[in-house]
């Protein structure tokens, strides 16, 4: 095997002397490097508005690039990282990104409140469209930086879901299926996979930006909205989200939100011209059917709402973007229920969207059907398939366990929010929406105005938003780790007490 191929597989690295095999280091370095690269142009733009703020962004970007480059230079992969390390590394990456973003918001003077800065940063990197700032008061540079946080957050999520996790959780329900034969794979190795995902992601962003530009949105707005649409982030620079933009930008947003919620495997098949595979993707059809059903439900339930707005809201909910073309909080309760369920189900696996994911929801329904059959005949052998592949029994069991945890996190989040005085429906909705990384709820309004929540309420949402970005695994793993550590400490204390006695 050639050295270049080995390097591509990540087995060796070229020209290294003192290097460390740490997945944490690699993930954090890559994330900061990308963020730094995006922060620099934002800083340059900001310099024209406010030199001091611009300098903060430039220095921040420089630091990000510096850490990223040095982290990359001192990394060498020697062994395949374990699942625990990858999950832990991803959690650490998000933590570093959120702290970095908080620092930029505070130092640039956008807000002097650390809690607000932390919330804005967490909301950005988790691609949730809740905001505690007035977007109309932000300068062009800060708008760009804010959009960049969502773009980087989604990129890290994509790389984790398509490149990092499949390597360590082979066959798991957390890993999207549909990679295909080795030669056709989107991610045959970590390096190639990273490159391809980045290319598709950047390409989609560019296309979206061009489409926005073609509708007359303006350069700055096009760039910011392209970043926040393709990342399913949902930040905008207007107080009413997309409502005051015309039909053109709304149609472009609908199309790109739908694409952003699609699996990157499906997009890869389209690029490779594999029409048959694309047409046979059950998850894709389920996803599109969900958007269509939600649209029809909204149209039937709501008087005076046109197809464009119904489709926009459905695509926004299904892709968990959180943009709004109309004030959907005044829709009848049946339309609201459909939107909430669509948001909770979320987008396809291996996409930039959040939520439970369509494939998992489909597998859960199939699991429920199987259990009903088993009630009639306990010895019946039934298999559940995902994209034509049989899902192992233990994986299905794990999926149900994961689902219970997902529901539990939403319930705890809703209860904690309710303690801050938020009513029951808004608490449940906000918690579900945050864990699905969508954002808006009846209390925050269609534009996701988080100032309607108390400061404590906003802080309580942060773990849910971050957990939702990577299908709650890192947070849960951390909680289970803490529980195990507690058990371990208790056992040691008991042993010590016994010895002393």
């Amino acid at each position, binding site marked *: 095997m050639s050295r270049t191929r080995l390097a591509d597989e990540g087995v060796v690295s070229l020209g290294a002397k003192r290097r460390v095999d740490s997945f944490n280091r690699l993930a954090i370095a890559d994330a900061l490097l990308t963020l730094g690269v995006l922060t620099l142009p934002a800083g340059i733009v900001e310099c024209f508005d406010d030199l001091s703020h611009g300098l903060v962004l430039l220095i921040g970007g420089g630091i990000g690039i510096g850490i990223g480059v040095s982290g990359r230079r001192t990394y060498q992969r020697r062994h395949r990282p374990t*699942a*625990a390390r990858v*999950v832990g590394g991803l959690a650490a990456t998000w933590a570093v990104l959120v702290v970095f973003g908080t620092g930029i918001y505070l130092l640039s003077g956008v807000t002097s409140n650390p809690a607000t800065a932390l919330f804005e940063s967490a909301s950005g990197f988790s691609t949730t469209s809740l905001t505690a700032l007035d977007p109309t008061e932000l300068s062009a540079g800060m708008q760009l930086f804010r959009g960049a946080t969502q773009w980087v957050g989604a990129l890290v999520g994509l790389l984790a879901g398509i490149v990092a996790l499949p390597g360590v*959780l082979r066959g*798991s329900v*957390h890993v999207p299926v549909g990679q295909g034969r080795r030669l056709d794979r989107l991610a045959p190795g970590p390096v190639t996979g990273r490159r391809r995902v980045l290319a598709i992601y950047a390409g989609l962003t560019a296309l979206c930006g061009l489409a926005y530009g073609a509708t007359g949105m303006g350069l700055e707005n096009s760039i910011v909205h392209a970043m926040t649409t393709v990342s399913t982030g949902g930040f905008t620079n207007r107080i009413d989200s997309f409502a005051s933009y015309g039909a053109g930008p709304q149609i472009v947003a609908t199309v790109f939100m739908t694409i952003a919620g699609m699996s990157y495997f499906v997009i890869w098949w389209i690029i490779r011209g594999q029409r048959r595979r694309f047409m046979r993707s059950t998850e894709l059809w389920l996803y599109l059917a969900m958007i269509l059903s939600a649209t029809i439900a909204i149209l039937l*339930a709501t008087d005076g709402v046109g197809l464009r707005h119904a489709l926009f809201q459905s695509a926004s909910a299904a892709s968990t973007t959180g943009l709004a073309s109309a004030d959907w909080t005044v829709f*009848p*309760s*049946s339309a*609201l*229920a*459909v939107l909430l*369920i669509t948001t909770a189900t979320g987008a396809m696996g291996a996409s930039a969207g959040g939520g439970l994911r369509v494939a998992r929801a489909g597998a*859960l*329904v199939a*699991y*429920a059907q*199987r*259990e*009903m059959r*088993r*009630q*009639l*005949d*306990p010895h019946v052998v039934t298999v559940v398939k995902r994209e034509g592949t049989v899902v192992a029994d233990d994986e299905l*069991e*794990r*999926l*149900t*366990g*994961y*689902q*219970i*945890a997902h*529901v*539990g996190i939403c*319930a705890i989040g*809703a*209860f904690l929010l*309710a*303690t801050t*005085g*938020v*009513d*029951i*429906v808004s*608490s*449940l909705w906000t918690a579900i929406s945050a864990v699905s990384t969508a954002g808006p709820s009846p209390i925050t309004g269609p534009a996701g105005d988080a100032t309607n929540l108390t400061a404590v309420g906003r802080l309580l949402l942060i773990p849910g938003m971050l957990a939702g970005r990577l299908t709650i*695994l890192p947070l*849960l*793993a951390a*909680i*289970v*780790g803490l*529980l*195990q550590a507690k058990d371990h400490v208790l056992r040691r204390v008991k042993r010590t007490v016994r010895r002393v006695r």
Partner: protein
Amino acid sequence: MKIFRPLEIRRATELHHDRGGIHSTPLHVMGIALVFVSVGMLLSGVIELGSTNRDTAALFISGIITLVLGALLWWATRPGSARARDVFAAVGWTWIVITLLGALPFVLAGTFDLGGTSMTEQIVNSIFESASGYSCTGSTALQNFDIPGRGLLMYRQATQWYGGMGIVVLAVAVLPFLGVGGLDLMTAEAPGPSSDRLTPRISETAKRLWATYAVLTIAVGIALFAVPGPSLYDGLAHGLTTASTGGFSPYSKSIGHYDSVLVEAVIIIGMVIGGMNFAHHWRALQGRFAGYGNDPELRTYLVMLGACTGLVVGLLWLDGGFGFGEAFRAGIFNVAALGTSTGFGNATGDISNGNFVLWVPAAQMVLLFLMVVGACTGSTSGGIKVMRVQVLVGHSIRSIRHTQQPRAVIPVRHGSHAVSEDIVSRMAGFFVLYLLLVLSGIVILTGLGAGLVEAIGAIVGSLGNMGPALGEAGPTASFSTAFSQPARLVISLFMIIGRLEIFPMMLMFAAPARALRDRFS
């Protein structure tokens, strides 16, 4: 004495069952159950005759119709097979028919006729009331409690008593010659993942459970009669719906009618005992109390009730503008009422401490949590059940640990015992179905015009057999004003689905479908 060989025993059994008539387990079980239900109607008719004498004819006519129908079905049919689909069909269809015939006394008496009320509205409300009664839910469509007589109100209470331990369980207890899968029938109807066998003979187990149930009912009735306030009638009426964790009361203000701490204390104790596994109560009546201490589910149930009481009291006291005494009284009663899926209310008016829809949202959220969880397996209560929640939480933690250690073998434990994978799988399936039902129920109810909070409260409350919902369908409200006619029918269906713990109602069409397929193929 002749000794039968196994084959001869089988032939003898076949001969015993082959006395002619249609072989159908569902119809046979339904017939027996209807006979039992008719007894309740006729006894209530006697009470009505001796008291208000307004609805006597309605009760007697309904009782006779039900008795004749039941007896005909019983006489004309013979038990058939005891395959799973027949058992589910037997239990599911029996409950549907009982609910419909159980509505007859209300329809004939004009209980829901407020002057100019349409017949459709009256029938829908009657079916709702019947479903709420037999499923032990406790939601009511009744707006004027002065219309029905005391006998009809007692019948309403009795529906919950029948439903609490289960009519099919009663059939198994009294009629051991039913001859078909008694255990399966009992398991399909009894709350919880499986039935706790007290004796090797399933009919003996059913008898003991019903005996324990009767003892608890009488004990609560006597205790209520002993404290100042309730009459003997009140004691019996509330005894029937406390032991069954049903929650119906002959008064519009429910327990708030007495505004008495002592009455509330008796009811709380009765509800908490009703939410425990009746197998432990039976053993306790035999002088064996160890079962209480050794049951991890019971410990969790009591800890959960204690913790939720503390939380609600704290929230009401610190954040809800209540004094400590008021918060404690309102908190402990409503936590016990919803934590045991009884649904009694202690509100003395629309704007009073006991009306929990006026509480701070966090306290309402605690009640919503209790509505989902419910009480112990083997009790008369509803909800998912504490044991299932314990196992599901363990299963969830194991799933997450597996992502870190994919090859680790981690059993799910309940107390010190490892739970078999088959049971874990069944419970997970139940939870997934429960979740799907909740979501579809919310969409249907909101589609029928209900508000989101009312729909969430009504679906969770009806699946958990709680009674009061949230929003405009709170503890002091009538469901007939809060929900449209079709919505009330949907809620009625969800009540029965919840009472039978989903599977029988979902699979009750399997046997008729198979029979049709066999006939036409």
